[in-house]
């Protein structure tokens, strides 16, 4: 291999590697997120291009913070589809809640040791959010998901 790939061992990977990966993905993601509007319009929810950009920007920060890499289509459109029919989501809090849900999602992918698939984690989040959390992001993050992650880490998650 030439000098463009300086090393082969895991611990010495080029620092730019992760930034590069995230940048590549962002190009395609904007259109995908905006296309969700067609579906969410029936629930009175809509993202402007600026909102979508803001959410994608926050995804970038979240991924960096949680030290994760996302390939292909991101999780945002899945989150939008899953949560758009929530009785606790309105146009006024839509962007803010989606931003927080996205951040929580990545956090708990790590906290659950990647034991749950994306769909499983989103399903749990939605159940908690609409159920015992009654739309409270703080309760979702600090209580429900914390307990779920604890159970998974202890191996006592029964589902």
């Amino acid at each position, binding site marked *: *291999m*030439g*000098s*463009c*790939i300086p*090393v*082969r*061992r*895991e*611990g010495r*990977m*080029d620092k*730019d*590697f*992760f930034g*590069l*990966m995230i940048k*590549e993905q962002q190009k395609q993601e904007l259109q995908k997120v905006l296309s969700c509007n067609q579906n969410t319009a029936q629930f009175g929810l809509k993202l402007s291009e600026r909102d979508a950009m803001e959410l994608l920007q926050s995804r970038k920060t979240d*991924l960096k913070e*949680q*030290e*994760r*890499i*996302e*390939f*292909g*289509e*991101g*999780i945002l459109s*899945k989150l939008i589809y899953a949560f758009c029919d929530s009785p606790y989501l309105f146009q006024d809090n839509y962007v803010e809640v989606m931003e927080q849900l996205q951040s929580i999602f*990545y956090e708990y*992918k*790590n906290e659950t040791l*990647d034991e749950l*698939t*994306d*769909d499983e984690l989103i399903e749990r989040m939605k159940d908690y959010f609409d159920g015992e959390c009654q739309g409270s992001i703080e309760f979702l993050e600090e209580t429900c998901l914390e307990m779920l992650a604890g159970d998974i880490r202890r191996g006592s998650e029964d589902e």
Partner: protein
Amino acid sequence: MNNYKMEDLLPIVADLSKQYTCNESSSIPYEKARMLMAAVVYCIEEYDREDCAGIPEAAMKKRVDPRTAYEAGCRCVVEKVHKAKVIYEKIAEDFPTFGCLNCKDTILEGIPAFFLWYDVRFKPQNHLLTLDYPTLRSIRGLCGIDAIYQYLINIETEWTFLRAFPEHSVISLLDRTMPDYEELFLDNICGAVLRNAVGCVIADRPITALVLLPGDLQRIESCFRGKSKERIRQCLDPLLDTIIRHGYGNNTFLSEYIKIEIPDFACAVDAALKNNCLGKVFV
């Protein structure tokens, strides 16, 4: 030699990531991404390095796109695993461990576990084992199947050397070296045997017996006394030739391999002469 940019490899890493998560997770932790990128780089390096049988691109060293290089490299890795397995099966057919637990654990238990758990697709750079039993030729700098393959070649060569000696002679030598050698001997058996074999040549004793009698040490000492390390090395070279000729005919590969030990051997003799403890080298 191929020369790819990091971004050329990203699509391959992305595909690997999908396979790794069975398409059930859109993101992976940095740690896993590093692992997958290292897997891709490892396979491409393997492609660059190897003339793999049955891999036409590799044999012709063609400049190819990264995905082709990666896939050909993967096949090279698999091919190497098969070659390593053939070598191992040949070794394991009749493999005296001389009661040395470290050797037994590493080769008879560790290596089969390697073949069971080695992950060509996602972690070809990880050879899983610490390979605690040392070989004369170091495998430092190698990883994945490269390390295991070279290690097995080393073991095969060393056991070619050791098989010329009766098992009881080697066991007796190890026992003299260290009474609890079964559990405590962590060194290379070949090196220990070689040293006493050289002692036997100098003292004119039967080489295969590996036994030196009282008084032989004086003869050995007189052979090396007053010589610099470099001169000791020069003395050892023909002695090793004698042993190889005596027991293995014209095996130049074995001869070259065994001679890797000369610098360490010369240092040990030099230090032993200075400290008046030659009996620790020639047991």
